[in-house]
């Protein structure tokens, strides 16, 4: 199963086909259903005026945002799993996701006037989320400083810091009068509701700026799978690489979370699925992982919009319903493997 072969057309077909069909399907699903053939016609620029309007102005920004956010989270998850050499790590476990949540809530709280409207542009929200994520990551790094060589401890520090962030979020949701609690809750659970092209452009720019860096490091990433001493023997600065990858993880996670909310488990499931498909070579995994992450968020978004329509479920809850059992399965498999 874990073949090291890169180009096998049948294997590569799966993620690309899944991604593209979900993209079309997600664009079609909504208050008015547009059939895939009409979506494709509209995407090609030949649809009816109504279809063109719905597809290009209403649906596509949201779909692109979901896809790009998923790609960011999935890539972040893969880098973190390699960095910590723990296949069970994911950005949410390090507390980064909750930290970004605190950033956004503080932003909404401090910069809203008495009428609950923001006094600055909403465009600053991602900056607040990134600040929250970075500060949380720094906090974890501060505690874990001496234990940087022990990834397991890093995870424990992350869980504790995440708990702090979570309780701050809870307190905010309950106490801050500016929030209608349900709005805040939906953001926290993850949602790509009401997306604009500008949002998708920002996430897209950041993703395509950060992802090539990961690609450039793919050879070092492969070496880092070895144990510390062997990796050092191949001329690798393990700690520097680990720091660099964690920095990338934080940046990617912050980008995604600030726009699509706290969607969990994508960073955990997508890299595993990708490695099951194309093997362990980072170069290939890094191409497939974002595709699968995007597919996962798109699928979750479709379910979230249709399952309880007209009500909209949080995307993050759907990914958790799928991701959590899969995680448990991985955990059991890994423990059995270790014996």
């Amino acid at each position, binding site marked *: 199963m874990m073949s090291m072969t890169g180009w096998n057309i049948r294997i590569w077909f799966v993620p690309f086909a899944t991604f593209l069909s979900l993209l079309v399907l997600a664009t079609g699903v909504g208050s008015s259903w547009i059939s895939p053939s009409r979506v494709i016609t509209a995407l090609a620029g030949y649809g009816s005026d109504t279809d063109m309007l719905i597809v290009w102005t209403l649906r596509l920004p949201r779909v692109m945002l979901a896809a790009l956010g998923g790609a960011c989270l999935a890539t972040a998850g893969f880098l973190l799993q390699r960095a910590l050499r723990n296949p069970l790590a994911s950005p949410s476990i390090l507390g980064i996701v909750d930290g970004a949540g605190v950033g956004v809530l503080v932003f909404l709280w401090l910069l809203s006037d008495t009428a609950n409207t923001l006094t600055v542009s909403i465009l600053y929200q991602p900056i607040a989320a990134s600040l929250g994520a970075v500060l949380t990551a720094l906090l974890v790094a501060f505690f874990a400083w001496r234990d940087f060589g022990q990834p397991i401890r890093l*995870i424990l520090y992350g869980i504790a810091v995440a708990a702090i962030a979570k309780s701050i979020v809870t307190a905010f949701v309950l106490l801050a009068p500016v929030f209608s609690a349900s709005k805040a809750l939906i953001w926290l659970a993850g949602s790509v509701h009401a997306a604009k092209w500008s949002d998708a452009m920002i996430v897209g720019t950041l993703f395509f700026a950060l992802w090539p860096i990961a690609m450039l490091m793919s050879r070092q990433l492969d070496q880092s799978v070895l144990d510390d001493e062997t990796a050092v023997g191949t001329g690798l600065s393990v700690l520097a690489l680990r720091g660099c990858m964690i920095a990338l993880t934080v940046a990617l996670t912050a980008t995604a979370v600030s726009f699509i909310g706290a969607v969990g488990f994508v960073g955990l499931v997508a890299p595993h699925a990708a490695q099951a498909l194309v093997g362990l070579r980072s170069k290939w995994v890094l191409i497939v992982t974002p595709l699968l992450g995007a597919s996962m968020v798109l699928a979750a978004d479709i379910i979230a919009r249709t399952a309880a329509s007209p009500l909209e479920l949080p995307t993050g809850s759907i990914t958790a319903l799928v991701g959590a059992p899969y995680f448990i399965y991985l955990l059991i498999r890994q423990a*059995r493997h270790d014996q």
Partner: protein
Amino acid sequence: MIRLLLSSPVLIVFIAILAVLSLHLGYRPYATSTVIAALFHPNGSADSIIIASLRLPRTITAISVGAALAVSGLLMQGVLRNQLAEPGLLGVNAGAAFAVVLGLGVFGITSFLSLTLLSILGALATMGLVFGVASAAGKNLSPISLMLAGVTIAALAASMTQIIIILDEATMQALLFWLAGGYADRNVGLLGVLAPILWLMTMCSYLTANLLDAMNTDRDTAHGLGVDVPLMQFALLTFASVLAALCVALAGPVAFIGLIAPHIARLSGRIAHRVLIPRVALIGAALSLIADIVARFVVAPQEMPVGAVLALMGAPIFLMLLRRNRVRLA
């Protein structure tokens, strides 16, 4: 010094002081004479009613829930031989909370007794799931993996809870406060039923001291000492889960007491469970009272949910213990 601080008489005095403080302090602070008058010669005045029917139940809830959760955590740690086990981190609290929200939001159950039973069912099901994962993974499952399983199951329960809340906005606001965990404005009738049960169960846990000591040796030794290990594991985990579930029914999911109290109790070195159990219960009650008092002041005049205060207090303590290698990971 630390041994003296952690001795039972000192802790009991400390709890008594905190309990008295928690009757005095709050949005409206009271003079000692008013408090005494309200407790012993209730005269129907507003002050008297506030103290006797709001402050006192709250103090009792804090003590009962704190002690019970701490003991529940200790039992889980002892049985699973895992110093990270705790009803909150293992997902038991979240499972119990999910069952309650399910009953309330989907099936429209409003009787407190039925909801308490649901909470117990939810906690037991979650514990079963966590334990099932642990058994399926085999005996080499590391403490960290068990904890990851717990955190994941908690996330699963939380997201299902979230879906129900979003589908049923009517009950949402009330549920949100309960879900954050807190001791204020709890149902006094329910407290009257659950508090005695919690106290009784907390005291009964003392009977398991020798058993826990035996189980803390390796499996073969425990077996040699005449302990039916799987059966006892099952019995003790059930006991600990029910304890946690009752706390959830009463005060909502309150995390970290079960984790922190045993670690603080162990600061004086390794000790037998005979000493450890009462000490942990007392430390849990004290932590819970402190958190409840702090909750009244951090964002005054509003109240912070105690669950949030405990996480804010407990997580840094946990971080400190981790850094000082006070938490055994293997």
